[in-house]
């Protein structure tokens, strides 16, 4: 017994103290890991993969010297597969790459057009990645290019992306798509999907994107057929996607007052319901949108706070929303891409037709007859009932 206890104590000290750290291979001190925040994947011309990871520089915030120095560390490597490229970073990485904090996975436009599913295999297998990491597509550039150019900004790139995400609710032309969602949709046949797009933008208004210094901007959605990028949607259609998918959080609707001056209405609440049904005329789908707005600004000189004026504004906002939605529906039908994921609502309503619907969805989808119903109200007018312009 005495020997047993001696052995136990000896083992504890051997395993615990740093001299025998090799015994516990998974032990890594927190300051010796490269906490990846952004993973960027591009395919190169020689059929290799350019793999870029970005983290925040440790000293930036705490030492109070973040002002002039770069806020991030970037590691780049390449390989025939993502895994090989990731491992090859060990050739020169000063810290062990760790993906537990990866918040953004970005792909260049060319890579996205070739198909992104093969690159997600490594990410879905690696136990460190979080499934709530967000995926973005870079319009017109490679992901590495994006990091190289935009990372010059003093604020750390991932923090900037995160803030942009938080603020994007105000315009609702884009929304985040997580790795889990993407893997779920890309794995399905016959379903198209959309991923948010980021574009490199000039940091000063009026400059060309090629001049620099560079900034970035949210640019709606990129439409994917299976895992391949097909097209970028404009702002109206991106917002239309958000309306149909019930992802609308807030936005500004500009309408005309009776005197043709602009009035800004802020979307406060919205709810979209999709009602599929099948009858002798084939597949039909009613999209009911119900939303309310606040009157946030008026440039009109007229008295707007009357029932007639509100009714006039209401009709305009409903018309605008309906146009947005019909435009994107028309686009989807024309391209034969179910970007709204309508197969599932049909299967849920008609489970006995599950196999048939799945099998023939490619042919059935373009034949669906859509009916868009929009109902709205202007809820809040605040306490100011008169515009400062009112004479």
């Amino acid at each position, binding site marked *: 017994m005495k020997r047993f206890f001696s052995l136990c104590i000896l083992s504890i000290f051997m395993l*615990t103290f740093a001299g025998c750290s090799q015994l516990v291979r998974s032990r890594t001190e*927190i300051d010796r890991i490269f906490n990846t925040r952004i993973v960027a994947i591009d395919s190169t011309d020689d059929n290799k993969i350019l793999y870029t990871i970005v983290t925040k520089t440790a*000293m930036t915030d705490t030492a109070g010297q973040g002002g002039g120095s770069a806020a991030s560390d970037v590691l780049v490597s390449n390989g025939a597969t993502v895994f090989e490229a990731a491992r090859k970073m060990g050739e020169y990485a000063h810290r062990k790459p760790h993906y*537990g904090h990866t918040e953004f996975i970005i792909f260049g436009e060319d890579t996205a057009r070739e198909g992104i599913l093969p690159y997600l295999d490594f990410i879905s297998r690696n136990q460190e990645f979080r499934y709530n990491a967000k995926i973005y597509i870079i319009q017109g550039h490679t992901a590495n290019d994006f990091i190289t150019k935009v990372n010059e900004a003093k604020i750390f790139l991932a923090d900037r992306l995160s803030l942009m995400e938080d603020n994007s609710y105000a315009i609702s032309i884009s929304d985040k798509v997580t790795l889990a969602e993407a893997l779920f949709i890309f794995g399905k046949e016959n379903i198209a999907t959309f991923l948010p797009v980021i574009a490199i933008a000039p940091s000063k208004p009026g400059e060309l994107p090629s001049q620099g210094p560079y900034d970035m901007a949210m640019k709606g959605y990129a439409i994917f057929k299976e895992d391949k990028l097909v097209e970028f949607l404009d702002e109206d259609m991106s917002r239309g996607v958000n309306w149909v998918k019930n992802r609308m959080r807030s936005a500004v609707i500009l309408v005309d007052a009776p005197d043709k001056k602009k009035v800004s209405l802020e979307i406060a609440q919205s709810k979209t319901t999709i009602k599929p049904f099948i009858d002798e005329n084939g597949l039909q789908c009613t999209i009911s949108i119900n939303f309310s707005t606040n009157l946030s600004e008026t440039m009109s000189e007229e008295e707007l706070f009357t029932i007639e004026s509100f009714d006039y504004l209401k009709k305009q906002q409903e018309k605008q929303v309906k146009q947005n939605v019909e435009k994107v529906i028309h686009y989807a039908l024309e391209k034969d891409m179910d970007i709204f994921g309508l197969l599932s609502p049909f299967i849920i309503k008609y489970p006995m037709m599950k196999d048939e619907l799945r099998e023939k969805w490619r042919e059935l989808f373009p034949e669906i007859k859509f009916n868009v119903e929009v109902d709205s109200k202007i809820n809040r007018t605040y306490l100011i009932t008169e515009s400062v312009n009112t004479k």
Partner: protein
Amino acid sequence: MLNYKNSSRNAEDIVFEETFDYNELELTFRNIQSIIGSYSDFVYRNINIVNDKKLEAYMVYIDGMVGTQLVSDYVLKPLMQADVFAKCSSEADVISIIEQGTVYYSNAKKRTNINDVLNDVLTGSAAVIFDKHRIAFTFETKGFDKRPVSEPISENVIKGAKDAFNETIRSNTATCRRKIKSPNLAIEETIVGKQSKTPIAICYMKNIVDDSLVQEVKRRVNDISVAHAITASFIEEFIIDNKNSPFPQIMYTERPDRFCANLLEGRIGLIIDGLPVAFIAPGTLLQFVQAPEDYSQHYLISSLIRYVRFTSMFVTLLLPAFYISITTFHQEMIPTELTFSIVASKVGVPFPMFVEVLLMLIAFELLVEAGLRLPQTIGQTVSIVGALVVGQAAVEAKLLSPATVIIVATTAITSFTMPNQDLSNALRLWRFLLAIASSIIGMYGLTMGLFLLINQWCRMDSFNVPYLSPFIGDEKLQLQDSLFRFPLSTMKNRPESLKTKNKQRMK
């Protein structure tokens, strides 16, 4: 001539078994003097009843243990001056008159055995010995200095009784009697300690407590065979069930109100002469997390505070180990921004996280120990030096990271919320074990350590009451007074686990 019984035995036997066994000796003044010797605090006096040289007696007492005024006024004065003794012609007449109560001292005992006389004298009685008749009278004239009833030190409450136990058993039992004015309050006394002869009062409510529990407590107390019972552990360690567990198994309190409340619950109390605390058995984990203040505040406030205390218990136990685990093995568990804050604070620190935490924990233990040992005024200086040196200087010198200091400081603060110091000490020990386990295999180590701890708790009994009662056990759950303190009106029954005779506490 003295004849020690079994004088051939070795010294150890004499010390532990035979010291007071003088049955073979006759009850005479000379024999008593021979046994006791001529120590300076023993007072021997030759007295002649009413100055009659024929009526010879001897008085023995210990200076400081008896009230000399009491001896003079109520023992010596009647013997020397009472007219009734003037008619006595022999010592037998004197003895007969004393037996009739002429020496009007309330607590007088007639002794014929030398051991009894010695015991009485050593516990503060004055003995009057009649050599020829081998008879002595002992008068309980205790008059030693005792600390008055003062305020509790470690269990202070704002809204509650301010009296605390002191070192005198009789004073303590009287305090209990004042609080429970019931003939059912039983206070049985037994002596523990071959040398110290420490009286221990076993207190319980006859009409409530489970008889088998009383028998068990008595058996364990009577089985204690030690030289002295001057410190608490000499009783506690001998009567608890799991001697190797650092967790307390009987509760101590310095508050008579808490003590009495537990007696009325159906528990058994032990009051030990010479200790200003009383013990309550059986003890469960829940009791050690409850504080007297819980029952003097509104139940919502008490519930909140008690919940915070439970949380603190787990924080103080697990936080260092958890911190080591997540910073060394499971960095993905830390929120992203916090990760970068920890990394930034760790830059330049040469030690691994485990060593950092261990150093800080040891430094904290040293500070606590130093603060306890030093006088109160210097103790504060130690705290300041500790905070400055360990906290600030070590961080500035990049020996420790600020995040680690915050973690260990949080651990320390939460440990101070434990109402029971014994529980706090046990948690200290387990905190180190869990930190070591988690430094080896991270969260798995921590989980395994925690599993072992909970396993230990589940296996523990205190006087046949499960240690985790009322959270485990086959009786119906009584959780009104556990994690939260429900209104008193909902606590209609006494704890099931105590198997009380009268289960109903209120209608």
